[in-house]
């Protein structure tokens, strides 16, 4: 499996560490139910899914990777910093 780092380019999967689903962080005003969903509930879908990967052996960037869990195709990648996942403060 190859992942395109937006900074380094096309790289081997072994240079990366995977964290899990790429989710937008709940707002500061979020309810307990919102946080329960954010922390514990996942769709586990067969198809395109977004995850956060870390280019640990490379440039140290966090990357949002869109990956097809059925075909293993890497559909797209972008820097996590540009994926608008942080909540308003």
């Amino acid at each position: 499996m190859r992942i395109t780092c937006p900074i380094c380019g096309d790289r081997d999967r072994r240079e990366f560490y995977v964290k899990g689903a790429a989710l937008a962080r709940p707002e500061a005003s979020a309810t307990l139910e919102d946080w329960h969903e954010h922390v514990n509930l996942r769709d586990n879908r067969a198809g395109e899914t977004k995850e956060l990967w870390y280019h640990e052996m490379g440039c140290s960037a966090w990357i949002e990777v869109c990956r097809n869990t059925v075909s293993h195709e890497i559909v797209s990648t972008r820097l996590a910093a540009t994926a608008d996942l942080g909540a308003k403060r």
Partner: protein
Amino acid sequence: MADLIALTPCDGLLPVTIGSINLTEDVPEAMTLIAPYAGQEEAVSERLEAAHGMAFPAANRSTGKAGARAIWFGQGAALLQGSAATQELADIAALTDQSDAWAVVRLEGKSAAEVLARLAPVDLRSQVFKRGHTARCEVSHMMGSITRVGPEAFQIMVFRSMARTLVHDLKTAMAAVDARG
């Protein structure tokens, strides 16, 4: 105060020659990580140019030459090798002295790229990875930095604590490539 004896990271391990491939240690006078503050990239490049004679490198590139080199070193950072970074940069970039933190070796020979092909999962052939190109990448399961410094020469860096492993793995790969003739 005890009189301590300074040892280089690869002391007692290098140089090594196998066939026509040479592996030697480089010991830059100083190494400083330069991480420009947000929005200061251009100003840092200008002051670096004025003080050290080289621009701040773009991603996957290095600037300067032997003895004074700036190597792109990951997201938003470059490593200056040579004299210590000018303090002129201190108010617009984070400066970290890493002079003693890295083992720096030079691999040179006609089949140097073939040796590295056994250790790093990136394409380092000369038509793709040209002089001045650099990569932060895996080097034999270690976080490393590889820079092409000549037509048949690479600079390879890993954390100092892994110097012995780096030399061992490079020697093994050099012997294997040499055996193939």
